[in-house]
């Protein structure tokens, strides 16, 4: 029994973890910013041009947010490729 314990102790003494850690990649600041809330049309008597401006601004905000989502997808795909290249 003591020989088995001794043998195990000697064999397990080689079991150490590799001291290499890969840091979780940072995210670009532009992607962390939240998307703005869409604008509402304010007032009771509103001209069609005023409403049109709000619609245009909302389209703009949608595309700004879409740019961030595209950025996130690109970030994920690129970081995954880089992460998997370490073997």
């Amino acid at each position, binding site marked *: 029994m003591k020989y088995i314990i001794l043998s195990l102790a000697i064999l397990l003494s080689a079991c150490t973890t590799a001291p*290499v850690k890969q*840091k979780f*990649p940072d995210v670009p600041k532009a992607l962390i910013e939240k998307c703005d809330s869409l604008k509402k049309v304010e007032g009771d008597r509103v001209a069609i*041009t005023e409403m049109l401006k*709000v619609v245009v601004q909302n389209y703009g905000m949608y595309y*700004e947010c879409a*740019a961030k989502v595209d950025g996130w997808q690109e970030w994920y795909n690129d970081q995954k490729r880089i992460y998997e290249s370490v073997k």
Partner: protein
Amino acid sequence: MSQIQWMIGLIPDAVLSWAYWAIIVVGITGVLAGWLGKWIPFYGNYVKVLQPVGIVLLVLGVWLRGGYDVEMAWRDKVAKLEEQVKIAEQKSQETNTVIQEKVVEKTKVIKGKTEYITQYIDKEVIKNQEIIKYIENCPVPKEIINIHNQAVDMNKAAEGPKK
């Protein structure tokens, strides 16, 4: 066990390598001396001691030397992996810079375009006689504005009750 490894780690690798080889050589010498000693007169008494000591030293030397080689192989692997991780982190940082610039540039262009269209409405569209007439006579019905504003808040339905 880790303390022993740590203490051994303080000794320079080259010294360790030489020490392990020395133990093997002494062990082999002991075994050979024990084997040859049988035929040498007056030397036979030492054979009983030399042979077991030689065997023990030989086994110990081979074990230590094997461990040393394994250690060196792992250190090599760790060094290569550290190098790969360093390169990956650098690439990751470069990718982040590219994405950051791309998103900032896109956002800038979109904001600019939105501003341009808004200004165009204020400066040009509003001067159009047909539109002026339309604005004077036809304000947007309240119902249309309400529906638009409800659509703006449609994401709140997906958020659910706040906890």
